[in-house]
């Protein structure tokens, strides 16, 4: 189980003159700091899939980066099955599998070597790495390209390799930042199947997305973030109940409560 409470993160603005008009109007810009995330809280239990929604620039990636320990929050807490992530980042990193939205592979290594390297970094034994890679290759249908250099991979192949790399150490929690963005229908389907597989095994998954159909298909819980604040946090049924009709309208309703405030 993962519990996130009142996470906040601000970034120093080096040159305020360089900001765009829209950024200057953003209420999160206060003096020399841009308060990217101000108050984000949600929880995700074993076997749950949580969809993180929000407009571009809402603070989704920053939130996920804080969960993954890549960034250090200014305040708030993150706990994974009772372990404080902020106090023990190295322990937390072993429990989390994180796929960043802008991730890449080492082009001159093969797909297998890419995954293998991160297995080693996680301190896995040689034997268990080999076994795990075979398992993941079956699961993600990667056998026919696994031993080629990854610089020639298609977007789908890259994403599958990146996912395999993120979960090679069988993490307790999987965090995916826009895992299906830019993928074709087949590759998207493989990724969604994979998330479903994790859910069946009881591994909680948090993923951010702009595709509401994915949310409807997979998620048990929905968290909506806007302007760095949690606007909605609840199960899919109550999210649907926010508005009559489609999920899009529910989403708009969740967002609008900010603007009206």
């Amino acid at each position, binding site marked *: 189980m993962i519990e996130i409470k009142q996470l906040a993160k601000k*970034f*120093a603005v080096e040159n305020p003159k360089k900001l765009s008009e829209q950024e200057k109007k953003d209420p999160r810009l206060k003096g020399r700091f841009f308060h990217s995330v101000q108050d984000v809280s949600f929880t995700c239990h074993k076997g749950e899939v949580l969809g993180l929604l929000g407009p571009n620039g809402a603070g989704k990636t920053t939130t996920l*980066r804080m969960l*993954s*320990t*890549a*960034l*250090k929050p200014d305040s708030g807490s993150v706990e994974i099955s009772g372990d404080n992530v902020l106090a023990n980042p*190295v*322990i937390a*990193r*072993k429990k*989390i599998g*994180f796929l*960043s939205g*802008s*991730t*890449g*592979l*080492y*082009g*001159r*290594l093969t797909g297998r*070597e890419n995954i293998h*390297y*991160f297995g*080693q*970094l*996680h*301190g896995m034994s040689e034997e268990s790495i080999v076994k795990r890679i075979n398992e993941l290759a079956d699961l993600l249908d990667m056998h026919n390209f696994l031993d080629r*250099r990854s610089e020639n991979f298609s977007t789908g192949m890259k994403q599958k390799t*990146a996912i395999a*790399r*993120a979960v090679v150490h069988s993490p307790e929690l999987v965090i995916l930042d826009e895992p299906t963005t830019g993928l074709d229908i087949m590759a998207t389907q493989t990724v969604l199947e994979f998330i479903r597989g994790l859910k069946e095994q009881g591994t909680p998954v948090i993923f951010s997305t702009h595709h509401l159909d994915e949310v409807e298909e997979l998620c048990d819980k929905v968290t909506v973030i806007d302007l760095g604040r949690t606007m909605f946090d609840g199960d899919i049924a109550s999210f649907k109940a926010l508005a009559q009709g489609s999920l899009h309208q529910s989403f708009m309703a969740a967002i609008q409560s900010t603007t009206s405030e």
Partner: protein
Amino acid sequence: MWLVFKKEIKELLRDRKTLFFMVALPLLIFPVLIGVAGFVSKQAMDKAESQVLNYALVGGQYAPEIVEDLEQPDKFKLVEISENEDFTTIIRDETVDFVLVIPENYSSNVLENGQTNIKLYFNDAGLNLVYRRVNEIVKSQSELFQQSAFSVLGLDETQQSALIEPIVLEKVNTADDRENWGEKIGGMLPYVLFLLCLTGAMAPATDIGAGEKERGTLETLLISPIDRNKIVMGKFLTICFAGTMTALLTVGSMVIWGLVLSQGMAIKFVADFMAQIAMHDFLLIFLMLVPVVAIFAAVLLSISIYSKSFKEAQSYMGPMSILVVIPIMLALLPGVELKGAWAWVPITNVSLAMKELLKGTMDYYQLFAIFGSTVLIAGALFAFCVYWFNQEKVLFR
């Protein structure tokens, strides 16, 4: 740490472009180019030596011996010219290569007629051997005249040589061969070694920091459960390794190719020179390289990790080579010696020490200062690297 190092080296070895600059360039291309240049210039010299020179002669009747000596069809060819020809013009339009003007007072009787002044007109701007070739002939004649004058005067051999050169200033060099050549080669060595180290380290350094950021692999690496220090150390060692390897490969190839190309000519000299330098001095020269490479690697890694992209990193690294040359140049200034404060100036002190080691005049106590200061600086820079690897504003710029 070794995990990171091993993976970086593996990637480096698979990168043909970087490898080309690191290995092929110094090992094959440079020696071939130098060889070709040497071959072409040797050809040009041979040609100048064996070329048949066209010449015109004025006043040949006064010096039949010289005229006779010039009658060698495989070397010189006489061209007739009219009396009031302008020498400059005919040399410029290549009718002749030189004009020899012998004065009326030319005579073997030196004691009566005094010195004779023969004029040689030729274009001395380019590379040619005209003067040398004509001088050979004139000189032998001149010596004959000298001999006949001496015999007229009835001088013995001692008197003869005393007359030719009454006072001799003899040079007695207290520096042995090693010190002499050590000073010259030792001055050049740091330039070559340091710059090679730097260029060799640059390519992998860009790839390892900025490249990783650009490809988006950095974030994933940072959230793997391995200490940042170990990541930095692994990357740092890779850069050091690449830099040292490039320098060693290049110097090694220079020595080998030099021996091959010079074909025995200089081998004895080189071998003698090398034989005088003790093994531990060679080892020290190599060891000296280590802290310098460490400084380079730490600076390059900091730059690389700060940069957003390959391009940005490369433009920051460009001026590095100029910055490196300055302290090496300082080491060549007269009066700058390996003692006192100079022994603490980084890079300059290592350049000085390399020179001293080659010369065989090393004051080994200065090694403390050298290693002390370089290790201190490299250590500080390394700590800075680690600090930057923990800075969010640097990593997520």
